[in-house]
Each structure stands twice: as C-alpha cells, then as structure tokens.
C-alpha cells in the first residue's frame, strides 16, 4: 500500500513539474511572441499616417543617429522629419531615478497609451527593447518600422543637424584611432580640472592626454587666458590650427569649455564626444591607464584668435543687452540662480541676474544640465530645446550669447547651439561672476515674466 502511495506521489510530482515548466516556458514564449508580433508597417503606411494627431513616430536609435550620423548601415543619417526620440540606450542608464525620468520623458514627448506609436530603428534590436518597455508601461498600440527603407529613398524627408559632425559618437573616435585619421594630425584630450585627474587616472580613451581646465582659464574671474598664453597652451599640447581635436570628459561641460576656447582660437576641426567618457565605456571600447605625455609643437599656424566672435566680454554683453530686438543675453543657470535665491557658488557673493537677460534653462543646480541632456548625457533633441527657448522669448534668429557662472554650462549649450546650426552665437565669458562683481552693473532678482 505504501509502495503504491509513494508511486502515486512521485507521479503527481512529475506531472506537476512538467505542467509548471511547460506553463512558464509558454508564457515566456508568449511574451516573446507578443514582442515580435508588433506589427511592422510599410513605408507607404508611415507616409499615410505621419502628421496625424493620434500617430507618433519614435526614433529608438542612439542620439548620434538621430542627430545625423549614418550608423547601422543606413544610407542617410538623421531622423525622419517629425519624429521624436526615445533611445533604447536610455533604458540602460544606471541611475536610481531613471524610471521616473523616463516616465516624465514619455509624457513630455507625447508618447501616450492613446497614441499609435511607431518605433523605428536600423538594427532590429532598439525598437524591440523600447517596445518591451512601453508595453510594460501600458502602451498597446505599438508598431515597428525599419528606417533603412526610409533612408534609402532620397525623396523622403530626413532631418539632421547642420553641424552634427561636431558631436561625435564613440565609433567615430574608435575609427579615428584605428585609421590614424588617415595620417592627418589629431589629438584626443580628456578635459577635467586638476593637475592630476582622478577621472583620467581611472581610465581613458587610448592615446588620450589630460588637459587641466586651469590651462585655459584662471581665477578669480575664471575667464579664458589672454591670447598669447592660449597660444602657449596650444603649443604645449601639440595643437595647431589644422589638428583634429577630440575632447571628452566624465563631465561634458569641461570638455565643452576647452572646445569653445579652441574654436575661439581658430582650430578648424574641434569635436566633442557625445555623452562623454561613459559613451566610450558603454560602447565597449578599450580603455587604458597609461599616462600619455604631451608632445609640443613649435607653431600654432595662425594668429590667435581666429574666431574672436565666439567668445565675448563685458562690453559686448552690454551691447547685446542694449539691442533688445536683435540680440539676447541668455542665462544658462538653474532657476534658483536666475531668480536670485542662490548665487550657486561659494566664491560668488552676488545673487540675481543681469537686468534684461532671458532664462535659457540649465538644470537642477550649478553642477547639472538636465534641460539640455538626455538620460545618457547625450545632447537633447534640438526641437525641444528651441521650443523651450521660444517660451522664454529666445529666438534662434537673434544674436544669442550664453552665460552661466563661470562659463562651463554655457560652453556646453553653445556647442549644442552650434551643432543645431544656429548662426551668430557666442559665450559671454565673464558670466555672472564678472557681472555681479561690479556694483554698477544693473541686476534683477525675483521671478521674471515668461515671454
């Protein structure tokens, strides 16, 4: 009797286990099938529905592809005109607030459950990752499209930023190193503060040399060095007017600061790694810890500055403020700094803003720039930036000069504005540090009226 009971128990266990395994496998299979069963649309269907209120086209590729780089085998770079971006890369960002940030982005971009959402990519993977994320967040009307088809037809509108090449993807930098820039001179620099950089020492791009931002600016105003000393800096770092210079850092604003100064000096080909050092690491490329020595050159090759209008000083800033119709001085600081709640810095006493400036947005505090960056620290969508500025009376047709406390945040925004193709742009080097240091300069505090 016991033998029979044991046999029965064993049999029930076996059957139960089989049912369990089959059930789980099946639900995974169903999940997989559900994902891969997102309907693919044809180019004709895309054309038919593009522009309709209840349809939204979402580019799930990297920000570099969205900006203009022809990656993953597409014939043309850039994004389908009218598409919004929601990169698969953003889903993998290691940040405890990432889920909340992504949800806010979905809302801001209009990717809602009521919409028919067309997800496109070029590698067959990005769209599926985003589709999985969206379906987990309650979006059901999802479609897939292979953008290679659209890119192959020159009659179909694609948009890329006029100067997208200024902001480079990691793959471009890797190719530059592998091909030795086709024997043309190039340098890769890691830009951060300090003689010794912890970021650099922990690991850097092969061949990269550390630039201490104190090599290009000095206190107490933290303006760029005089032109003769900037030339010495260039010679010391092996930079000539014809050198292709690639700048990056853990903090892109440091790289952007050096980039704007090099462009001001006249270096013809200055590039910034989009997304910073993290973009290189995420791409899986080699890092090294060897400290690479600077190799000097004897001549810069041109008179400094070659592009003097790229950086302006106090007098020009005042001229811009006086020209209310044709120009704007744009405050790239946090709201709290703009309204005078805080100066933002231990070493700047004054609080407020120069009278007559427009608030250009920045981030949550002096060390962040969320309003201009995606979750993976790549450049924010230009259409969104311009819409944000339009709400605050900043017209891209005007002469725009950006400033912040001492020039780092404004430098990054200047580079993005340049990438977007804005003409007549500059950075006001002295910024709030200089302006607030002279009590004769007019100041405002409090909340301004949105224009």
């Amino acid at each position: 009797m016991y033998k029979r009971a044991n046999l029965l128990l064993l049999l029930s266990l076996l059957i139960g286990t089989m049912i369990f395994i089959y059930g789980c496998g099946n639900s995974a299979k169903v999940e997989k099938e559900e994902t891969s069963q997102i309907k693919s649309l044809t180019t004709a269907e895309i054309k038919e529905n593009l522009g309709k209120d209840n349809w939204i086209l979402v580019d799930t590729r990297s920000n570099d592809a969205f900006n203009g780089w022809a990656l993953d085998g597409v014939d043309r770079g850039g994004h389908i005109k009218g598409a919004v971006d929601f990169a698969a890369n953003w889903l993998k960002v290691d940040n405890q607030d990432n889920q909340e940030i992504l949800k806010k982005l979905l809302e801001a971009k209009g990717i809602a459950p009521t919409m028919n959402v067309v997800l496109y990519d070029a590698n067959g993977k990005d769209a599926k990752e985003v589709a999985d994320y969206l379906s987990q967040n309650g979006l059901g009307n999802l479609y897939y499209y292979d953008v290679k088809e659209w890119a192959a037809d020159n009659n179909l509108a694609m948009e890329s930023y006029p100067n997208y090449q200024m902001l480079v993807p990691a793959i471009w930098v890797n190719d530059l190193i592998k091909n030795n820039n086709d024997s043309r001179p190039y340098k890769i620099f890691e830009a951060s503060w300090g003689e010794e950089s912890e970021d650099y020492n922990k690991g850097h791009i092969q061949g990269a040399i550390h630039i201490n931002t104190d090599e290009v600016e000095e206190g107490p105003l933290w303006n760029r060095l005089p032109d003769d000393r900037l030339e010495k800096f260039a010679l010391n770092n092996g930079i000539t007017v014809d050198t292709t210079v690639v700048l990056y850092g853990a903090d892109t604003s440091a790289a952007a600061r050096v980039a704007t100064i090099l462009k001001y000096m006249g270096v013809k080909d200055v590039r910034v790694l989009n997304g910073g050092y993290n973009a290189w690491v995420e791409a899986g490329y080699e890092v090294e810890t060897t400290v690479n020595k600077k190799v000097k050159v004897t001549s810069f090759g041109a008179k400094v500055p070659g592009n003097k209008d790229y950086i302006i000083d106090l007098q020009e800033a005042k001229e811009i403020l006086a020209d209310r119709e044709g120009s704007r001085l744009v405050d790239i600081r946090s709201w709290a700094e703009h309204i005078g709640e805080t100066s933002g810095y231990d070493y700047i006493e004054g609080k407020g803003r120069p009278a007559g400036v427009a608030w250009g947005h920045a981030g949550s505090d002096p060390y962040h720039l969320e309003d201009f960056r995606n979750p993976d620290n790549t450049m924010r969508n230009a259409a969104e930036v311009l819409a944000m500025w339009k709400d605050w009376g900043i017209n891209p047709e005007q002469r725009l000069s950006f400033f912040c406390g001492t020039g780092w945040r404004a430098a990054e925004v200047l580079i993005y504005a340049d990438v977007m193709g804005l003409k007549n742009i500059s950075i006001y080097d002295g910024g709030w540090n200089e302006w607030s240091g002279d009590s004769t300069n007019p100041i405002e505090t409090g909340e301004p009226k949105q224009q």
Partner: protein
Amino acid sequence: MNVKIKKISSLFLTSMQVFVLSIVFILEYLSNRKMGVARYLTYKKALYETQFFNPDQLFFYKLILVSVLVISLAVLAYSLIKLKKSKVTGTILIGIVATIVLLLLVFLKDSIQLNAFPFFILALVIITLLQSFRLVLKLIDR
C-alpha cells in the same frame, strides 16, 4: 597658579595652535584635489589681496614683524642671561620661529603662490598671539 590649571591652559593653547595650523595645511592640500576648494581659495586670496595685502599694507606688516622679531630676540637674550628660565626661553623661541615663518611668507614672492596664502598668514598670526599670551602667563606666574 595651580599646577593643574597651568597644564590645562598650556594644553589648550597648544591644541589651538596645532588645530589652526592643521586646518590651513588641509585647505592647501585639498586645493590641489578639489576644484571647489581651489576656486574658493582663489576668490578669498583675490579679496584679501585688495583688503589686507596690498603693497602698502605688506610694507607695514614687514616693519611690524621685523620690530616684533627684534624685540623677541632681545627678550630671549634677557631671559637667557638674567632669568635663566628654560620654560620661558622655550616659549619665546617658538614665538620667534612663528615670526620668522611669517616674515618669510610676507617677504618671499613664491609664497604668494600658495593657494591658502592668506589663511597661512592668519594662522601664523593667531599662533604668534597665542604664544605671546602664553609668555605673559608664564611671566606672571614667575
């Protein structure tokens, strides 16, 4: 003065001197490691240069320091010859050393390159004042 009180007050004065000097060295160390500290010290240096360390003021400080040094050396000589009190001698010696270091800071052009330069000056002035106070106490107690 009660021996215990003397010891406590001596310990307190020494601790204050060590604390003040340590803070300044820590600031100088951090100024090469932290951008925020470096910029803050640069700002303070620029501020104090106009308020307390302009060329006229620096000349005045040099005069005072040289006078203090001369007086200290005279007191040291007096204490060695007349008083023969080793504890007082030691106190005066420390004061002299602090004065000499201050003089070097003020005279040497390279010292102004120190990021925490104004704070070094301040720290050494505090140390010298505390040392003078300690000397007065010892003289009273004698």
